[in-house]
């Protein structure tokens, strides 16, 4: 194999797949990235046996078709450090040479025939969604999914296709983020749990500038995302996802409208004095204002108020400020709406036209 390529383009493609090879594995061959050069062009392929990604490399000239394995860590470090505009890569038996103007680098590489084949994807439900919107949905829901070892360590997001709409839902049992978009494609309903890691890889792999829609295919145990020649396939998680619809409040005693940016800033200020075993900021909605307060024993306390539009009796409720900031940060609404009933039932935050956040309060305040 021998190719001539633009370093920038190769580096960009490598960024997409370079995060997939595992740092530790009983199967060291998958710590490499497979480069496949054919008459049609060059692709990079990486897998950790759960998630696999294939991405085309732009601006290449294939001198000699063939396949070679590039050790993921060293190659990505090299591409980052080199400053030459073009590179020549040639794979011979057992090694790959990267020739740059400033020097040449020989990497020992495994036999490409040992590399696991691309997973076979059985066709299933097919839908298309606007890519930028879907990436926003990932950004707005993935933080709410538990990663640490907890009872709701789902480590995935629920993708629910229903009646022409696609919902993405993340929860860690204390909060729940839900985004919605309409999709074109099969009317068939589907409900699958996608590993967070796969969605993070997808966020890196596809550009939100693309004019093409993101194509999503779901089979019984896999999901495939495809856009502009880039393809990402992931195993689905078989975790049970909680019955999330039951915890979304259908009605509330009070409705509050509040400026998002202002709230975010004030919350940050007050939260400084909310240390302790449980981080907590108290909200007291009354008349046309909300009083935010926090207390930290032995450190001090904070009190601050800001204007709101309140419908209903209002009342007090306490939240973990970090949980709320996580969501406010990724909202693009000027005004957010809060629906609440009392200090022990979930509050509903409307943070966008199709972005809802459910947050459970802290009791005993």
């Amino acid at each position, binding site marked *: 194999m021998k190719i001539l390529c633009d370093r920038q383009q190769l580096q960009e493609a490598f960024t997409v797949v370079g995060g997939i090879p595992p740092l530790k594995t009983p199967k060291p061959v998958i710590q490499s990235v497979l480069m496949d050069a054919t008459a049609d062009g060059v692709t990079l392929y990486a897998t950790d046996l759960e998630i696999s990604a294939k991405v085309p490399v732009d601006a290449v000239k294939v001198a000699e078709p063939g396949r070679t394995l590039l050790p993921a860590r060293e190659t990505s470090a090299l591409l980052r450090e080199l400053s030459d505009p073009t590179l020549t890569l040639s794979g011979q038996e057992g090694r790959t040479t990267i020739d740059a103007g400033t020097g040449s680098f020989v990497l020992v590489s495994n036999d490409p025939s040992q590399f696991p084949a691309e997973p076979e994807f059985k066709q299933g439900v097919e839908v298309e969604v606007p890519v930028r919107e879907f990436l926003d949905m990932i950004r707005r829901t993935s933080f709410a999914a538990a990663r640490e*070892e*907890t009872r709701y360590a789902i480590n995935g997001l629920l993708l629910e296709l229903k009646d022409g709409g696609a919902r993405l839902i993340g929860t860690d*049992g204390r909060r729940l983020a839900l985004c919605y978009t309409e999709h074109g494609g099969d009317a068939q309903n589907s409900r699958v749990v996608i590993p967070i890691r796969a969605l993070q890889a997808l966020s890196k792999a596809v550009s939100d500038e693309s004019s093409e829609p993101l194509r999503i295919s779901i089979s019984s145990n896999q999901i495939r995302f495809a856009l502009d020649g880039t393809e990402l396939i992931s195993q689905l998680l078989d975790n049970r996802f909680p019955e999330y619809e039951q915890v979304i409040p259908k009605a509330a005693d009070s409705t509050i409208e509040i400026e998002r940016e202002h709230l975010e800033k004030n919350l940050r200020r007050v939260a400084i004095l909310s240390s302790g075993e449980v981080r907590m900021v108290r909200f007291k909605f009354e008349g046309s204002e909300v009083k935010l307060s926090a207390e930290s024993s032995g450190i001090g306390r904070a009190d601050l108020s800001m204007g709101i539009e309140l419908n209903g009796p209002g009342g007090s409720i306490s939240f973990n400020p970090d949980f709320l900031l996580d969501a406010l940060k990724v909202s693009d609404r000027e005004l957010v709406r809060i629906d609440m009933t009392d200090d022990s039932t979930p509050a509903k935050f409307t943070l966008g036209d199709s972005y809802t956040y459910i947050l459970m*309060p802290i009791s*005993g*305040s």
Partner: protein
Amino acid sequence: MVRTVLHADMDAFYASVEQRDDPALRGRPVVVGGLGRRGVVSTASYEARKFGIRSAMPIGEARRRCPDAVFVRPRMEVYAAVSAEIRAVFDACTPLVEPLSLDEAFLDVTGSRALLGDGEAIARRIQAEVRARTGLSVSVGVATTKFVAKVASDLHKPAGLTVVSPGTEQAFLDPLPVRRLWGAGPVQQERLLALGLETLRDVREVPLAALAQRVGAAAAERFQQLARGIDLRPVEPDRDAKSIGSERTFDEDLTADDDVRRVVGRLAAEVGRRLRAAGIVARTVRVKVRFPPFRTLTRQVRLTAATDDDVVLADAALELCAAARAPGEPVRLLGVTAADLVPGGASEPRQLGLFEQEGAAGDPERGRRLNAALDAIRERFGDAAIRRGE
């Protein structure tokens, strides 16, 4: 060697701390507890006790009995800090300190006598030090066993010091009413009274067989031993307890899934009660399963929120157990442990869960109240008196 065991018990602990910190409360009936509609009394000051207000009583009833009392929410953080001060005083007297909760502990000072003087001297030193460091009073019982020390500390509250010298245990215990017997709840007491036994002397002198017929063989033996002042339980130091656990080994392997579930549920309830008694909550639940002959598995999970609730502990433990054991697989030993302990209590803020059916009917306050009630009943009538439906 004759042991010297101290039982030190803070007087109306929470309420005394509140009175210490707010001079306006001094001399007034003070009730510390949950102030919600369904709150219960944690501690009542001595002034409030005159109105018949007791721990675990619904706050509404306390209000009825004494409308003029001052009702305050517990401040666990403060109590935990004071408890650490007290603990430091104990630790300075002996390494053998067995804390029972935030406000009481057993101390085995046998080895400290040469250095610090006899039990009475050490007890006085503790009382003076505790007052100097915290401004609070503590009652101390000095004896040769845990049982006698505990009875003694309770006899002359507040700020009492009762010494039962070696050899005088019998004389000390004999005239005491049977309700002083450790482990004798009202039901057992009534049985003893029905036998005509009113004092510990009566219990000591009645033929064992007659007693056994009424209260059961095990209890009969224990009561007579205690009435004679015999109590071999050692003071078990529990330096930074990292976990609280309970386990059971079975004479015959357990195979039925229902039996396993039942035992796990009971172990979880026991762990929950000990957590609540110590005023702490746990973030991690661990389950230990031993399959015959010796293969042992442990599984643990971190909870979304620290808890002391039986139901939450049991749910987590059952899930872990189901993951560790195939249905019908025989089991020789089961254990449930709560780890990752942090100071807790009713007033500690707690992140609520979206999907968690915490406590009874998904209402954490109700769950807490139920737990308090169950604990109070078990305290009075013994462990077997009440149990959650299984």
